[in-house]
């Protein structure tokens, strides 16, 4: 078998030690802030207290006179370059509607000025002395109100670009339909429901931070906590009208991102401060600033109108998705499209329609967040599946089994809906859904407990719920990753790549792929990643792409290096290259003769045909194989208090070959717990004037070790032919399950259907006590004229 197709792995599919784990556990690994830079200034930002206001005038004279203040900037001091902060490939499929410092405030937390000073105290005093004369404008906070005629227009400037309908606050739209029969003509049961998801935040433990300094030649050195170093370089250069080559971006260790650091938020303004002050500057957001002024998970209002035949065949799938983007259009088109493109192919219907609108409101800005629209879409879809099963009198698991996509099948949605543009045609390769369901049912003891929980009558009642989902693996024919590998004379290798490890373990996983091809151990691969001067390009860490796309680039580069090694070894061993294998750090010939890789390295450096053994390779994917997952929740609902406790949770996932099973489990564990607290507690709350009311970990509750319910990840191995050594993605999918699985379990326990997470005691109790069986959301939203087009 060729090395690229091998399945008897020595490094891949082993839980080898994460390459940076020991340094991290000992506190010696360096994050952005863990360096000492002489003369470093503190950069600080001034935020709008108003949700919607035009800035008549900003007076910075007093601020400039504060001792120790070296720079004060407003929009008047910066080039007027409309851009998007979304760190996407170029040209970005997000509207160019943002200025680094705003001339009009569009939410409480919009940035209007920046200062740099010798001390934090001086910086704060400077901010306190900036006088902004605001003309307060009417604001709009509701997604569906914002698109009505007569709503305040949030982006009314002529120089914004790619806003499809600024007058109606629509920052992205996408419609798609496949119709093989009259709508709902073959359906025995039609279910029409609305769902509404909440604002949430990533809560990476390391807040956004950037340090801009200068190298000896005066180039800008940007040390930043980013998921997208190459996009950060490009966008910073464009926003400040600097040559790209004058900027070097370095990503050190990153304290988590989950999508929040796919935004180029701080780099341009910090670079502008450094250039103005001619000194190095650090901007570090406080936790409060991170909540108020960074990025959020887009809340969605979703309508599903679906039809099915009595036998359980889904006939019609009509989906309307209204994505609340807040004040700016970051990721507006792509997140909105992914709410459909990742969900609609899951269950095949004859008639499929997607109507998507992303909407401006005077709220904090939506951005990329693990799950990326699919999370919101699957909450609606997997709730709807249970409602339909109930109306058809079918078992919810059997109903799903009858309809989900299988290996060898395609979907018109794959071709019609990509990320911000047309997608690609693809057929499902690996699909472990059958096994995911079987293993999950067994782990949670579904059938046994279902019998046990029939006819409950106590105060506390238990129930079970499930959810099935998929995601993608990178953005095909868009995302490019590159890697280069060079050999040292001791038989070790330097692996240089643009791929961005933000705590995910990609440095380790990618080194494992290289080591597998080169027949060495993980310790013989020295990783350097994410430095725009030193490593090849990579789009960065997003869209569940790194293992699949960067992994393929690394594998290709390693195969080229392997070929070069074989050529040298062939001469040493007097064998044909094709008869030589690399294993255990040696080149082993057919005859049994072998030599150490150090001999190959030494030969190439110092003896015969002297040359550096090295190669680089790039990869662009032509498919985006979905990982699949099935989640099972067991809950207990207190009918007197409305409290929901998760008693057990089984999360299965088919990610193809897990390159590093322990890291894959860890990724899924983190996604699942994030999903559980998103289902039960997490929510950004706002005052009537639009200010966030709970911008702290005290007010915005993410789960601690003691809060976390028992749950387990179960990896279901498959082999994806397009992936490196059979791998697909794993990082995002796990967050999509908990909201619907828990909603379905609550329904199973107490017969109450919840359409608006989080499922707080107030909401659960309110729904339990309500006289009507349906939530007010169904009648309140259903009347809106904006939805008439879909009737």
């Amino acid at each position, binding site marked *: 078998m060729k090395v690229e197709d091998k399945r008897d792995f020595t490094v891949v599919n082993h839980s080898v030690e994460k390459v940076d784990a020991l340094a991290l556990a000992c506190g010696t690994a360096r994050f952005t802030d863990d360096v000492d830079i002489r003369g470093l200034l503190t950069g600080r930002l001034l935020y709008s207290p108003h949700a919607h206001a035009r800035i008549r005038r900003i007076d910075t004279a007093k601020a400039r006179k504060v001792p120790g203040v070296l720079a004060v900037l407003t929009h008047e001091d910066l080039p007027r370059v409309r851009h998007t902060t979304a760190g996407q490939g170029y040209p970005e499929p997000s509207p160019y509607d943002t200025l680094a410092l705003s001339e009009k405030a569009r939410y409480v937390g919009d940035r209007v000025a920046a200062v740099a000073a010798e001390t934090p105290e001086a910086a704060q005093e400077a901010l306190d002395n900036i006088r902004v004369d605001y003309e307060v404008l009417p604001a709009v906070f509701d997604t569906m109100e914002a698109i009505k005629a007569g709503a305040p227009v949030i982006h009314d400037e002529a120089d914004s670009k790619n806003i499809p309908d600024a007058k109606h606050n629509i920052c992205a739209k996408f419609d798609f339909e496949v119709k093989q029969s009259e709508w709902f003509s073959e359906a025995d049961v039609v279910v029409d429901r609305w769902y509404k998801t909440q604002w949430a935040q990533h809560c990476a433990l390391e807040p956004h931070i950037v340090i801009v300094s200068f190298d000896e030649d005066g180039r800008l050195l940007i040390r930043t906590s980013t998921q997208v170093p190459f996009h950060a370089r490009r966008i910073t250069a464009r926003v400040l009208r600097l040559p790209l080559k004058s900027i070097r971006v370095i990503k050190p*260790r990153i304290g988590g991102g989950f999508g929040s650091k796919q935004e180029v938020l701080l780099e341009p303004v910090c670079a502008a401060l450094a250039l103005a002050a001619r000194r190095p500057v650090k901007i570090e957001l406080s936790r409060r600033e991170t909540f108020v002024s960074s990025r959020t998970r887009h809340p969605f209002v979703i309508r599903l109108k679906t039809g099915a035949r009595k036998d359980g065949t889904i006939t019609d799938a009509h989906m309307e998705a209204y994505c609340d983007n807040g004040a700016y259009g970051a990721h507006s088109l792509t997140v909105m499209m992914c709410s459909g493109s990742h969900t609609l192919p899951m269950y095949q219907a004859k008639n499929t329609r997607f109507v998507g609108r992303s909407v401006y409101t005077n709220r904090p800005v939506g951005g990329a967040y693990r799950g990326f629209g699919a999370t919101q879409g699957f909450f609606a879809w997997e709730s709807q599946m249970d409602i339909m099963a109930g109306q058809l009198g079918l078992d919810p698991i059997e109903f799903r089994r009858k309809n989900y996509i299988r290996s060898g099948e395609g979907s018109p949605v794959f071709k019609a809906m990509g990320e911000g543009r047309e997608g690609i045609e693809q057929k499902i390769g690996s699909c472990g859904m059958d096994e995911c369901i079987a293993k999950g049912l067994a782990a949670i003891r579904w059938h046994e407990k279902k019998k046990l929980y029939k006819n409950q009558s106590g105060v506390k009642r238990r129930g079970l719920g499930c959810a099935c989902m998929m995601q993608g693996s990178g953005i095909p024919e868009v995302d490019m990753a590159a890697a280069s590998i060079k050999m040292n004379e001791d038989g070790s290798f330097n692996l240089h790549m643009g791929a961005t490890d933000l705590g995910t373990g990609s440095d380790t996983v990618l080194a494992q792929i290289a080591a597998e091809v080169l027949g060495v151990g993980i310790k013989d691969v020295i990783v350097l990643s994410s430095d725009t001067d030193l490593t090849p390009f990579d789009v960065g860490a997003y869209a569940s792409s790194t293992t699949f796309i960067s992994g393929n680039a690394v594998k290709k580069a390693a195969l080229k290096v392997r070929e070069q090694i074989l050529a040298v070894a062939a001469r040493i061993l007097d064998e044909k290259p094709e008869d030589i294998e690399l294993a255990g750090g040696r080149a082993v010939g057919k005859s049994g003769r072998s030599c150490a890789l150090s001999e190959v390295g030494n030969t190439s450096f110092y003896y015969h045909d002297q040359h550096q053994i090295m190669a680089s390779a790039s990869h662009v994917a032509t498919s985006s194989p979905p990982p699949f997952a099935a989640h099972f929740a067991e809950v207990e609902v207190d009918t007197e208090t409305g409290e929901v406790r998760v008693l057990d949770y089984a999360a299965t996932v088919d990610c193809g070959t897990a390159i590093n099973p322990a890291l894959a489990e860890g990724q899924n564990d983190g996604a699942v717990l994030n999903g559980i607290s998103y289902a039960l507690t997490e929510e950004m709350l706002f005052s009537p004037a639009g200010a966030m009311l709970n911008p702290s970990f005290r007010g915005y509750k993410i789960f601690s070790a003691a809060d976390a319910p028992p749950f387990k990840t179960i990896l279901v191995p498959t082999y994806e032919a397009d992936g490196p050594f059979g791998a697909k993605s794993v990082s995002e999918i796990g967050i999509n399950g908990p909201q619907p699985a828990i909603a379905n379990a609550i329904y199973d326990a107490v017969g109450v259907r919840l359409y608006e997470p989080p499922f707080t005691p107030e909401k659960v109790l309110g729904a339990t006590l309500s006289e009507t069986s349906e939530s007010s959301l169904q009648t309140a939203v259903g009347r809106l004229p904006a939805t008439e087009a879909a009737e």
Partner: protein
Amino acid sequence: MAKRGILEAVDGMIRIELRLNGERRELRVGAAESLLEALRREGLKGAKKGCDSGECGSCTVLLDGKPALACLLFAAQAHGREVLTIEGLGAPARPHPIQKAFVDAGAVQCGYCIPGMVLAAKALLDENPDPDEPAVRRALDGNLCRCTGYVKQVEAVRLAARRLRGKRP
């Protein structure tokens, strides 16, 4: 070592004496400076700033052997006391068994919360060498992590406990 409670100001800075990672040290700190800022200024970057308001635990150090939030303490409050940071516990060349257990259990993802969590675990295991799972979860309750779901971190602490018990039967 100076008596606790007696502080001397020099040029607007306060002179404090403490045992820092096992060594007697004298530091000059600002009157309003937090212990976290002072430690980081001294080059001890292992304690992290995650919220600066005592809610996330990323800045956890051990103060006289007990977990303390360095972001909430004035540096001057460390006068006359013993402070242990992650750097004092072990280094990559000679990691403490708890650090090694976190690595071996796959409990380290981004690692930003890990120094604080390792020290919280140290305080627990010093008091209770054989904690059950709920005890481990309670001990880690003040250390938020967004990457791991805590599954492997709880495993790591129990693995460390087993290994440490094996060493001192």
